């Protein structure tokens, strides 16, 4: 049986962070710090989400003069829907009574 896509802990963390403010654009470094992931874990994940159409990516000119433009990210509608589904899934897990013992 294959693994279900986008169900890893890291993916859930990133989707949850992005879904908190769906219209906000995030820098990669800020996102990495916010969710506590290293760049080596975050970027493959962002690339995959972007390929799947779950993440919007856009170049924006840097705030500081003379700096290169920066890549920014936010969820697409499909990404936001997936984030909601995952959040609901987690909520239902946490509400499911566990057998005593």
């Amino acid at each position, binding site marked *: 049986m294959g693994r279900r896509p986008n169900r890893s802990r890291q993916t859930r963390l990133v989707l949850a962070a992005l879904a908190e403010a769906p219209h906000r654009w995030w*820098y*990669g*470094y800020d996102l*990495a710090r916010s969710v506590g992931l*290293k*760049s*080596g*874990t*975050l*970027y*493959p994940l*962002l*690339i995959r989400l972007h390929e799947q159409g779950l993440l919007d*990516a856009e170049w924006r000119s*840097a705030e*500081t003069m003379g*700096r*290169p*433009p*920066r*890549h920014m990210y936010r969820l697409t509608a499909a990404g936001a829907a997936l984030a909601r589904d995952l959040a609901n899934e987690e909520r239902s897990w946490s509400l499911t009574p566990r057998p005593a013992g």
Partner: protein
Amino acid sequence: MSAARQLADMIMAGVGRLIPPREHEWAEAMAAEQAEIRDHRDALAFSAGCLRAAGWQRARALAPDGSWFWPGLAIAILLLGTAAIPRSGSSAFVWAPVGGLVTVLTLENFGGRLSFGRIVLLAFKAGAMSALLFLAVALFLFLPEGDGRLDPDRPAQLRGGSHDAVHHHQRRRSGPFTVQSTERGGAPTPKEH
């Protein structure tokens, strides 16, 4: 510019070369982020992570549908080893991937927290550990079976003499006995240990 920042920039240049061409935009995105990080050691750790990400993406590109991921990774390691052969011989197949991975993980995990000298020391220690591990595996795989002492009953021809009398000598163990046989020496002679 500090040594950590210089190294971080060098690593980012490597990221640009390692990442698959169709994802080059992402290497530029990583480089732009790295340039924004003020702390040089944080930038170094970030760059090391980007190098790992680029290697990961390269391995994935060799296996677009996922089914060839691990073979793809093996091929990538093989290519890396082959590239390093002129410098370090055939052991490069082991050293290049192990050394590369150890260095990248050390930088990524400790680059932002430790001094540059300490990082070098850690990488050196990690390298020494992997060298010992490699040696242990090599000894386990290639050491001949047995205690290595010369068998007093072994034919003289095999102890440095000529090979005209006996062409082939076989030694195999069977329970408490060692069975010796020669090609034209008739039946094997059991000998108690």
